[in-house]
C-alpha cells in the first residue's frame, strides 16, 4: 500500500455495517487469549496433519502443517423483520471480575470495551483495514497530525450524562484518561507518541503526535478496544466513578453484576446504528469449572463454549451432532520460553543452545496433540509479516541438542547450578508447558531446572514485568490483533519498563523504533522481517515455539457470527439468537 493510501485510508459507514453484519462473538476466545487459556489441546486421535514426533523423543519432520483456513464466514441474507431481537445471548464468565472499572482490570475492560463503550474505529486482524465506527472520516494531512470527524451518538440514559450527545470533548477526556492510566495499556504509544488532543468543535477531534507511528490506528494503540473506549467527560476525569456504575454509548447498557460475577447488559435502544443490536441483551454466567461449563452448554444455559482441547470438542460434537457449529481459528498467542539475557545467559551461545534444545514438535504433540502450528516471533496468522516456514525451519525452529550441548560447554555454562522456570497457575496449561520445558532442558541440554509456580498477579507484576526470575519464565503471549506488538519485546524498554529479560541491544532497539516511522507498508513489512532475522542472529531471549488452534462451539441457533477477523467480530451488532 502506498504512503498516501495508508494515511488516508477510510472505510465508509456502509462498509462498516456490512462488516458488522457478519456478526460473531469470539469474545471468549479473545479474553481467554488474554488470560493465557485460549489454547486447545486434544487427544491423539486428532491427527491434524501437523508436524509429528516419534515416541522416543526424536524430532519429527520439520515441516509446517497447513493452517486452518482463516475465512470470513459470510452471513446469509436475512429478513431483519423476522428476527426476534429480544433473545439474550449467554456466554460464560470463567472468573469473577475483581472490579467493574475497565481501567482497573484487563479482562473487565476488554469485555466492556466490546459492549458498553463505543469507539471511533477498529482495525481488523485479517485485512488490517481501518473500519470506522463513530468516526465518519479520518483525515491525515501529515504523519504527525490527524483529524477525526465523529457522527451522532448519545450516552446511556443515566446520570450524570442522562442520555446527552457524545461530543468531541468526551473523546479527548477519554484518551487523556487512558494515557494517564498505568494499568490498562502496556503500549508506550500513549506516552511517547501521543502529544496532544484538541477539539475545534463538538464533532471534530484533532490528534497531534510527537513522532510518526505507523501503528497508531491499531488495536494496541489508539484503536485499543480498551483504551480507546469513549467515556463521558464527567466520568473520564474521575475514573473511580466506574467502580460503581458504567455509562457508555455502546450498543449495550450496563444492568447489574454480583460482586463482579454474572454481569448483565441490555440492548441500548438509542444505539447509533438503528435497529441494532439484534439481541435483547448480553449476559455472562460465572462458571469456573470447565466441566460445569460443558454441562451448562449442553443444557443451553450458555450459547457458546470454548473447548480446552480437541477431545472436548469431539465429544460435544459427537453428543450434540449438527445442533452445534464449530468455529476453528489459529490463535495469535505464542507459547514462549523467555530466558534471561544477562548473568549466565549473557553469552549468546548459551541462548543459542536453548534455541537448539527445544523440540517444538514435542510441544505440539503433547500440549495440543497436533492441533497447533510452529511459530516465529510473529505468528503465522499474520501472513504478510511472519517469516516463511522455510526460513524459520533453518533458523528459529532448528532442533539440535548435540550442538546445543557443545555450545553450552564452549560458553562455560555452569550446568551444576539449578535455575528456575517460573509460570503462573491460572489454568492447567502453563504448568504442563513448564513441565515440558523442564524435561527438554534437562534431557536435551543437561541443565538443572526446577519449576516455580506463582499466582497470576504476582507472576505478571513481579516476575514478568520486573524481570524477577532466575533462568526462565514461560507463558503464552497475548493474542494481539496487530503484528507490531510481538516485536516490542526486542526493545530496551517495554511498556515503560526496562526489558523484562534484561535484553539490551542497540541495533534491535533502534530497528524496532525505526519501523514505526516507516509509513510505506512494503518497506515496513521488510523492516519487520529484518527485525525477526536480527533477533535470531542475536538469539534474543524470547523463544517462540508454537500457536494453537482454537475451537469455539456455538449452538446453531446463534446466528450472524463472524469468524476469522480477530476481535473485530466482538463489535458485531447483528449476532442474533434464532429460537
Amino acid at each position, binding site marked *: 500500500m502506498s504512503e498516501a493510501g495508508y494515511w488516508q485510508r477510510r472505510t465508509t459507514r456502509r462498509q462498516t455495517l456490512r462488516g458488522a453484519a457478519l456478526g460473531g462473538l469470539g469474545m471468549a476466545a479473545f479474553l481467554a487469549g488474554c488470560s493465557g487459556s485460549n489454547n486447545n489441546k486434544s487427544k491423539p486421535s486428532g491427527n491434524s496433519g501437523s508436524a509429528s514426533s516419534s515416541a522416543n523423543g526424536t524430532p519429527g519432520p520439520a515441516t509446517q502443517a497447513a493452517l486452518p483456513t482463516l475465512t470470513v464466514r459470510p452471513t446469509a441474507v436475512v429478513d431483519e423483520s423476522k428476527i426476534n431481537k429480544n433473545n439474550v445471548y449467554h456466554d460464560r464468565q470463567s472468573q469473577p471480575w475483581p472490579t467493574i472499572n475497565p481501567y482497573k482490570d484487563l479482562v473487565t475492560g476488554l469485555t466492556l470495551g466490546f459492549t458498553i463503550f463505543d469507539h471511533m474505529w477498529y482495525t481488523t486482524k485479517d485485512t488490517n483495514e481501518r473500519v470506522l465506527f463513530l468516526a465518519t472520516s479520518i483525515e491525515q494531512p501529515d504523519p504527525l497530525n490527524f483529524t477525526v470527524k465523529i457522527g451522532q451518538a448519545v450516552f446511556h440514559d443515566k446520570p450524570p450524562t442522562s442520555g446527552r450527545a457524545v461530543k468531541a470533548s468526551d473523546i479527548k477526556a477519554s484518551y487523556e484518561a487512558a494515557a494517564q492510566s498505568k494499568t490498562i495499556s502496556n503500549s508506550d504509544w500513549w506516552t511517547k507518541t501521543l502529544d496532544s488532543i484538541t477539539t475545534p468543535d463538538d464533532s471534530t477531534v484533532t490528534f497531534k503526535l510527537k513522532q510518526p507511528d505507523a501503528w497508531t490506528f491499531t488495536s494496541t494503540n489508539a484503536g485499543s478496544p480498551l483504551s480507546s473506549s469513549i467515556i463521558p467527560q464527567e466520568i473520564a476525569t474521575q475514573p473511580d466513578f466506574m467502580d460503581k456504575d458504567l455509562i457508555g454509548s455502546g450498543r449495550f447498557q450496563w444492568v447489574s453484576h454480583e460482586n463482579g460475577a454474572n454481569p448483565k447488559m441490555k440492548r441500548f435502544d438509542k444505539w447509533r446504528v438503528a435497529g441494532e443490536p439484534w439481541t435483547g441483551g448480553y449476559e455472562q454466567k460465572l462458571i469456573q469449572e470447565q466441566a460445569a461449563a460443558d454441562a451448562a452448554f449442553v443444557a443451553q444455559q450458555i450459547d457458546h463454549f470454548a473447548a480446552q482441547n480437541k*477431545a472436548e470438542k469431539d465429544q460435544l460434537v459427537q453428543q450434540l451432532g449438527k445442533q452445534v457449529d464449530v468455529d476453528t481459528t489459529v490463535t495469535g498467542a505464542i507459547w514462549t520460553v523467555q530466558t534471561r539475557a544477562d548473568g549466565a545467559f549473557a553469552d549468546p551461545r548459551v541462548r543459542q543452545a536453548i534455541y537448539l534444545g527445544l523440540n517444538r514438535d514435542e510441544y505440539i504433540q*503433547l500440549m495440543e496433540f497436533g492441533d497447533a502450528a510452529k511459530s516465529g516471533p510473529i505468528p503465522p496468522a499474520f501472513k504478510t509479516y511472519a517469516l516463511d516456514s522455510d526460513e524459520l525451519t533453518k533458523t528459529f525452529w532448528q532442533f539440535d541438542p548435540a550442538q546445543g550441548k557443545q555450545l553450552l560447554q564452549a560458553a562455560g555454562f555452569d550446568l551444576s547450578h539449578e535455575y528456575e522456570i517460573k509460570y503462573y497457575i491460572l489454568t*492447567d*496449561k502453563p504448568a504442563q508447558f*513448564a*513441565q515440558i520445558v*523442564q524435561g527438554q532442558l534437562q534431557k536435551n541440554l543437561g541443565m538443572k531446572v526446577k*519449576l516455580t*509456580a506463582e499466582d497470576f498477579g504476582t507472576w505478571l507484576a513481579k516476575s514478568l514485568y520486573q524481570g524477577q526470575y532466575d533462568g526462565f519464565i514461560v507463558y503464552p503471549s497475548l493474542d494481539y490483533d496487530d503484528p507490531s506488538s510481538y516485536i516490542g519485546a526486542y526493545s530496551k524498554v517495554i511498556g515503560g519498563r526496562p526489558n523484562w529479560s534484561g535484553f539490551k541491544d542497540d541495533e534491535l532497539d533502534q530497528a524496532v523504533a525505526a519501523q514505526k516511522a516507516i509509513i510505506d507498508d512494503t518497506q515496513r513489512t521488510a523492516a519487520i522481517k529484518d527485525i525477526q532475522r536480527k533477533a535470531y542472529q542475536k538469539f534474543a531471549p524470547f523463544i517462540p515455539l508454537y500457536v494453537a488452534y482454537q475451537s469455539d462451539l456455538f449452538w446453531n441457533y446463534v446466528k450472524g457470527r463472524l469468524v476469522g477477523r480477530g476481535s473485530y467480530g466482538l463489535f458485531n451488532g447483528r449476532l442474533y439468537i434464532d429460537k
Partner: protein
Amino acid sequence: MAAATRAAGELAWGGGAWQQPGLLRRAGRMARGHPLGVFGLLMLIGFIVLGLFGPALAPYDPHALRAGAPLGGLSPRHPFGLNNLGQDLFSRVLAGARTTLTISGTAVLIGGSLGSFIGILSGFYGRWVDYLLQRSGEAFAAFPGLILYLMLITAFGRGPKTIVLALAVGGLFGGSRILRAATIVERHTTYVEAARALGCSERRVFFRHVVPNVLPLTVVLISGGLGAAILAESALAFLGLGVAPGTPSWGIDISGANLTFARLGHWNLVVFPGLAISLAVLGANLLGDALRDIWDPRLRGRR
C-alpha cells in the same frame, strides 16, 4: 545382674513365679484382638516400603515425557496407563508414595510431638501457662487452615517445607487438648500425689510419673492424624497449592489436566492415584483406631 533382672521381671502370684509373656506373644495376642489394626499396619508398611523404594521400583522415570503414547490406556507395559504427557502412571503412583508420605508423615510427627508437649505442659502446670496455651490454641483453631497456608506461602514461599509447616501447625492444637486432658487426670492420681508427698520435685514428677503415662497417647494421635495429613496434602496438591506440578504426587495426579481428561473417558488417570490415597488413609485410620483401643483401657474388649 542377670539374677536381679530376672527377679525384677518376676512377680509373686499365688506363691508361684509368673513369667511375663514375651514380646512376640503379646504382639500376637494384640493382633488377634485387632485384625483390622494389623491390616492397617500392613498397608501402611507397604506404602512406607513404596515410599522408600518406589522410585527405584518404578519401571519408568516418573518425570520422563513420552514413556509411551500420550493418554495410552492400560497395558502390560503400562498397567495404570499414561497421562497426556506420556508419563507412566504406575511409576508416578509408586514414586508419589514418597512425596505424599514424606510430607504428611513429617508434618504429623512434628505437629503431633509439639502438640503433645504443649498439651502436657498445659495440663501439668495449669494456671496462666494453661490459659495462655489453650487460648492460643483456640485462636489457631478459629483460623481457616487454607488461609493459614496461603499466609505461610506468602511468608515462606511455595514448597514442601511450607506444606509441612502448614500441616504441622494445623494439627498442633487439636492433639494438645487430648494430651492436656490426660495430663490433668494423671496429675491428680494417687501415685503422683504420693510422689509429691515423698518430696519429689515437680521436675521429677513431670518426667518420671506424668509424661511416661500419657506419652502413648501421642502415638495414637500421630497414627490417627496421619490419614488426615495425607488427605490434606493431597487436597492442597489438588488445589494447585501443593508441591510443584510435575512432581510425582497422588494429589497432583488427581487434578489438573488428568481431571480434564478423566472427564473425557480416561478414568484411569484419576482412579489409580485416588485409590492410593484412599488405601493409605484407610491404613492409617485402621491402625490409629486399633492403637487407641489398645492404649485406652475404657475401650478394651468392646469390639
